[in-house]
Every structure is written in C-alpha cells, then in structure tokens.
C-alpha cells in the first residue's frame, strides 16, 4: 500500500462505521416498533382488521 495508506484506510473505516450505524439504527427501530405494537396488543388495543372488527 502507498504512503497514503492512512487516508485509504480512514475512508473505508468511516464508510464502514456509518453503514454499521445505519444498520444498527434500522434494526433497533424495527424492534422498538414491534415491542410497542406488542404492548398495545397485550392491552387489547388492536387494529380492527387484526381483531375481527373489534377496536
């Protein structure tokens, strides 16, 4: 690798960290929304289509 290896490694490292952050955010957000829906479901709060017409 060249004398500028530090710049090359830093560029790919920044990209990897940002992509990893995006993946972590999307996965965590998905889990959070599913948890909140499950909490509502446990309280009996459901979509009409999911509860056979009951709200």
């Amino acid at each position: 690798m060249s004398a500028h290896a530090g710049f090359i490694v830093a560029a790919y490292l920044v990209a990897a960290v940002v992509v990893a952050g995006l993946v972590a955010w999307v996965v965590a957000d998905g889990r959070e929304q599913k948890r909140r829906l499950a909490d509502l479901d446990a309280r009996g709060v459901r979509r009409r289509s999911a509860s056979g017409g009951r709200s």
Partner: protein
Amino acid sequence: MAIVELANPTRFLGFSRRLVPVLWALAGVVIAVGLYLSFFVAPPDYQQGDTVRIMFIHVPSAWLSMAGYGVMAIASLGTLVWRHPLADVTAKSAAPIGAAFTFVALVTGSLWGKPMWGTWWVWDARLTSELVLLVMYLGLIALWHAVEDPGRAARAAAILTLVGTINLPIIKFSVDWWNTLHQGESIFRAGGATIDASMLTPLFVMMAGMTLLYAVLLTMAMRNEILRRRVRTLELAAAGADA
C-alpha cells in the same frame, strides 16, 4: 403480484418481509466481490497510486446521495399528486439514509482530496453543492420531526423536497459550469467514461452493491415507519377511548 398492489401497506409488509433477506444476501455478495476487485484486481493509478482506491467507496456514496434524493423527489410527487399511501413513508424513510451516504461522500472526498489536492476542503461548486445537499437532507429530517400532524408534515416536506431538486443538476453539472478543483465528469458523460475498464468494472460492481445495500436499508426503514404509524394510530385510538 402487480406493483400497484404493493401500494397497500399491509401487502408491502408481507412482500418486503420476504424481500429483505434476499436483498441482504445480494448486497453482501456484490459488495464482497466489489471490494475484492477494488483492492486486489484494480491497478494503482499512474498518477495517484493506491489513493485512487478511495474512488471505489467515494463515487458509490456520492451516487447514492443524489439517487436517494431522486427517490425522495419521486415519492414527494406521489404525496402531492396521487396521495399514495406509501409515498410519504418512502420519502421520510429515505432521508436519513441519503444523509448518511452524503456524509460518507463528503468525508471520503475530503480524505481523497488532502493527499491529491493538498487540502481537505475548498469552496468549489461541486463540494459546496454536495454540502448543500447534506444540509437539505438534515432540514427535511428536522421538518418531519417538528410537525406533529403526519399529513401536514408530509405535504410540507414534499414541497420542500421538490424545491430542493434544483440542487441535483447543479451538483451533476457543477464541474462543467464552473472551474472546480474537483475533477471533471469521468463516468456518466457524453462520449463514454474516461476511466480504464480495469478500474471502471470494480467501480460499477461497488455501485451495484452499495445500491442494493441502500435498497435493503430503505425497505427496512419503510417497514419501521409503517409500524410506527400503526402504533401512533392505535395510541390515539386508545387515548380517545380512555377519555
């Protein structure tokens, strides 16, 4: 299944649940091949040496920063003209992902610029218009969070997004319209690419892989946004029933 049937959020959730693992696998394989080609097959540039390898992450990120905004602009038309049920979900979900890739494009460009140009940053037309794109992404994200009513937020964001599309041709043609330190167009240009195939092939593979990564992240973020809106609707219904 016809594309139009996916306009139904419930159908989209079902379809996308099967699509996400396929997109992950494709993105992983294509990016792995692209990285191999970028580091072990593509030759060093005769002037830049190995530093040219930053191109294989910088150009796909810059491409996604603009394509991502294009996705938001089309979705904004869907919000304003057709009131498509998934249009605002798409635009809102695409904004943070587009902002992230714009940030990567700016940082990797800076890391490429320092050893090649001797400076981290110059206020030339290409770099400045790309920075404006990042500011626009952040402004739109702030707008969606600032307006509580999703319908009003969707319309306001859609109008602002469409106004902001003026920046896309400015970014694209900035290197032709003004004298810039940033190099001229060398890939998508009339007369064909000026980059040798030994570097162009890895670049296109990386662009394909990163686009697949964008697609899977957007699909997952859209699924989250649909669920978030269901949670909001149910919480409002429950609060109304309690009152």
